[in-house]
């Protein structure tokens, strides 16, 4: 499913005289075509997470979004909450930054993965269970963890659960907001590869948010660079790696190179 974002703005609502309205995202344009894997990269605090929340319509209550976000043919900005909620989880799936916090501590792995299915589809218990187990196999989680609670899992396993829950309804657009930041390098690579292969199998689109070009290179073909709430550069990921124009992009590429790419080639 294609995603077309045009002139997206996010503002913090004014709270009295001492805290006037403050812009967080300024006029962001981006598009993700059907089946495409696109990156959104930028330094910490540049507003990447806000863009992803605005696309999904789940901004915190004191933030307001403006502009246009087209998911397929549905306008998400200013959409009726019921329509927006029925899009979320069925046509879009989201994986967030911190796997430890993204799972409800008092729900089992099975319950967490089943949640989007139960919300959007009329399935009986056995069908739900079968789907959950199939999804657990797809993300390489042992079946016996179905009744485990999040605190009994490792970080990598938790992120697999979050991915399973995001993908269990076969959404057409997956938004991954730094899904691997909290993980160590080896697990990080495995999770990114897993996510990419699952997304490709579904034929869905992916918007992959990160500040790490090394990860971006594995996951995306094209990317946007964001700084201080604006898109400052865009292009093919490979091309940007070798030929970054903007200072922010250069510093991000340099950081990734110094850390893991070792002179532009994969370690």
């Amino acid at each position, binding site marked *: 499913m294609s995603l077309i974002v045009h002139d997206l703005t996010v503002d913090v609502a004014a709270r*009295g005289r001492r805290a006037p309205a403050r812009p967080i995202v300024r006029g962001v344009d981006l598009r993700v075509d059907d089946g495409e894997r696109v990156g959104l990269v930028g330094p910490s605090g540049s507003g990447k997470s806000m863009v992803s929340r605005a696309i999904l319509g789940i901004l915190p209550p004191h933030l307001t979004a403006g502009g246009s976000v087209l998911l397929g043919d549905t306008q998400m900005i200013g959409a009726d909450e019921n329509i927006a909620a029925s899009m979320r989880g069925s046509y879009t799936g989201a994986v967030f930054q911190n796997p430890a916090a993204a*799972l409800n501590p008092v729900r089992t792995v099975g319950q967490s993965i089943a949640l989007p299915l139960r919300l959007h589809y009329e399935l009986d218990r056995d069908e739900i269970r079968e789907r959950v187990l199939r999804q657990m196999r797809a993300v390489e989680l042992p079946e016996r963890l179905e009744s485990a609670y999040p605190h009994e899992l490792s970080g990598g396993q938790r992120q697999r659960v979050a991915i399973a829950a995001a993908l269990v309804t076969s959404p057409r657009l997956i938004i991954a907001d730094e899904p691997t930041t909290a993980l160590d390098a080896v697990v990080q690579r495995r999770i990114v590869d897993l996510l990419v292969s699952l997304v490709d199998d579904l034929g869905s689109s992916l918007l992959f948010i990160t500040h790490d070009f090394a990860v971006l290179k594995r996951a995306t073909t094209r990317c946007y660079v964001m700084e201080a709430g604006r898109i400052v550069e865009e292009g093919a990921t490979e091309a940007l790696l070798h030929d970054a124009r903007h200072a922010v992009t250069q510093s991000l590429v340099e950081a990734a190179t110094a850390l893991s790419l070792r002179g532009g080639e994969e370690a």
Partner: protein
Amino acid sequence: MTGNTTSPSNRGFAPRAPRGRLRGARIVLSSLWHRADGAYALVVIGLWLAVSLVSLVWTPHPLLEASGRNAWAAPSAAHPMGTDGAGHDLLSWLMRGSLTELEVVVLVVLCTAVFGLLGIWASVGRRAGAGRGSRAWMVCVDTLIAVPTVLVAMLVSVPLGTSIAVIVVACTFAYSLSIVRVTRPVAQLAATSQYVEAARSYGVGEARVFFGHVVPAIAPTMAVQLSLSAGTAILAESGLTYLGIGIPAGVPSWGRSLANCAKLISVYPLTVIWPGLIITMVVVALNLLGDALRDCADPVVNADLRRDGAADDDRSASDMAAAESSTREQELTGERMPAQEGESHEPHRA
């Protein structure tokens, strides 16, 4: 987008199998039973319920049987706890009183839970609780908490007269406000947590976020608070009844018996022991129940709740560790199962 023609339905949760719920309740009860405080609470509360039921059909003496000659009688075979100033059999009155007490406690706990949840909704609900509104509401709560419960009771007793409603209204007022105060930080934490954000990203609506994520998060604190409320409601009943604005004169209750017996406490001090003892035992039981319940009903604390049926009963930490390391191993060796079966991954859109 493939599924454009058939949009997914927004159905409610599939009803959980009662089997699962019952199993959970049974596990909680048995964990309670295996702790000293839980067992004490269960025994005392069980006795209380049993005596209330029995008193409906039988008491050792009819409640209205009284004779002036028999007033302030010492315990005897006919009157095991003696009689009060009107010659009523104290045991019979205390037995029937436990039914009134049960009514008070159930009503107070129910109303407190409902109004407490409403108050929490007002402080963390998305539309209601954004920013300023929420802070104004908390200032309001803090102010109202400062109003003495006795004052509230006296005020509502003007229109309501002497009745059980006075106790219920006054207690609900005080306890639901303190529940809001005490649970708000936890509720706020849950409402703004990443798992709620994740749930919202799956399409969970506002009401379901509240009941599915915020309420379970505050449930342990609520359990403790509600059980404290139950105990305090009994104390409030005896206090307000003594003041003459609680339970009306002809109706048996523990507070009523206490008030009757206390009239001549300097002459017959032993009679007050019985209602006093019962009130203390039950209030202690209710307080202990809250503490024990918090530990036993929380799946993160109570490992038994996490076990999945009898077959898995011996699943242990080592098994978990094995599961963990096998995933790790795969990660390290880079071997991977086929990511997806060949069959279609598309769920049946309903």
